[in-house]
């Protein structure tokens, strides 16, 4: 792990560098507070820092304060080196944002032990970040199909609707429903139903553009988000999806299912995400009414009002 050191005295700096290197650390040596601050704010900055308290210009405490002003998920662990051992100074240093302090002249074993504490905390911090990231992904993913779940696709829609309003660009939304899906579940069991759902998703993803989003709205209903699309483009995308699913039977355990889907589409007028979902849902209902296996677009919001 890399350690930044800030020490104005050349002898002490060289000594500390050699000591840390002998413990297996990679050292970034700086000669004053300004240089240290710059190194700590650089991209891919060292995560451990040993700062001398007394330095000309910006001292170790100043560096702590300035580093702590910036919010980051990966803050450095800072140890202050201080000859000022009194309680007041210790409190000042810790309040400025130092994580620990070691008195000068330092006992090497103590410094080593305290540095290892810092390394453990930095590693723990990163492990928690990774776990948090994994949980965030999990919380947004539909467990069965692996696409965005309801919360995540609706959130995505809200974000895109805001962006469309801000930038004055169109936004298309499709709602997909598998025709007579209940029949698959009822006659062949839920495992077969799950397999059909997964295959439908696989085929849809195969014909989608990278900047479109697809998520499970619930049961056998899905949302297709097509940013930047007007009615013609939306219809093309939804037609492609309808066709790739209806064109070939889905085979589960040797059994062929002639699966078709109905799609309702709507392009955004001036309404909210909820309003857009409601109109796509109405269009989907119309597609079902008209005999299924088809795409129906809602009348545009402008014409409606």
């Amino acid at each position, binding site marked *: 792990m890399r350690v930044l050191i800030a020490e104005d005295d050349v002898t002490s700096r060289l*000594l500390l560098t050699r000591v840390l290197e002998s413990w297996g650390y990679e050292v970034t040596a700086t000669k004053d507070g300004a240089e240290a601050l710059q190194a700590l704010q650089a991209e891919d900055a060292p995560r451990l820092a040993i700062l001398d308290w007394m330095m000309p210009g910006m001292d170790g405490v100043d560096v702590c304060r300035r580093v702590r002003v910036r919010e980051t998920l990966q803050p450095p662990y800072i140890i202050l080196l201080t000859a000022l051992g009194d309680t007041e100074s210790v409190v000042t240093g810790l309040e400025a944002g130092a994580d620990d302090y070691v008195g000068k002249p330092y006992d090497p074993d103590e410094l080593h032990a305290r540095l290892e504490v810092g390394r453990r905390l930095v590693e723990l911090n990163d492990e928690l970040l990774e776990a948090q990231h994994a949980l965030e992904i999990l919380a947004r993913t539909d467990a069965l199909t692996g696409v965005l779940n309801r919360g995540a696709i609706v959130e995505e829609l809200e974000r895109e609707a805001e962006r469309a309003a801000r930038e004055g660009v169109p936004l298309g939304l499709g709602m997909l429903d598998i025709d007579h899906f209940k029949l698959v579940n009822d006659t062949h069991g839920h495992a077969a139903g799950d397999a059909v759902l997964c295959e439908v998703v696989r085929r849809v993803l195969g014909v989608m553009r990278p900047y479109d989003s697809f998520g499970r709205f619930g049961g056998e209903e899905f949302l297709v988000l097509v940013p930047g699309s007007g009615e013609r483009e939306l219809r093309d995308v939804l037609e492609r999806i309808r066709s790739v699913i209806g064109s070939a039977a889905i085979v589960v355990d040797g059994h062929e299912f002639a699966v078709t889907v109905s799609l309702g589409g709507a392009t955004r007028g001036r309404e909210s995400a909820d309003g857009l979902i409601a109109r796509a849902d109405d269009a989907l209902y119309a597609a079902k009414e008209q005999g299924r296996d088809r795409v129906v677009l809602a009348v545009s919001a402008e014409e409606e009002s």
Partner: protein
Amino acid sequence: MSVRTGQAHEVQARVAATDAGEPPVFDEAVLLHLLGGDRESAAEITAEFLKDAPLQAAALHEALAAGDAALARRQAHTLKGASANVGAEALRAVAYRAELACAGGSLQEAGELAEELDAQLRRLQDELGEKGGAP
């Protein structure tokens, strides 16, 4: 404390000083302890110190001549820290007294201590010179 010259005197003086409870001119154990016995690095660092310490001492004199107590104090402080690191015990002790004098605003006393510091530095150079500049 006066400036002594000549190796025999020097060694004698050091032994006497140690016996009297005064700090030794140079204690190689300090640096070796810090470095976990790495003699090569110890030699490198001592050499660096011998190059830098005279500059630090000169800066201390300058600050005192300019009547800048704060700067003088910091110079003395830095020299104290560096001396402590390399085991230049006698030098560290004088630097510390100079730091205190500067902090107390006694620039005249600090000036005398700066002279003494020069003397200690020469003793250190002599002693380390004896050993070829490396512990």
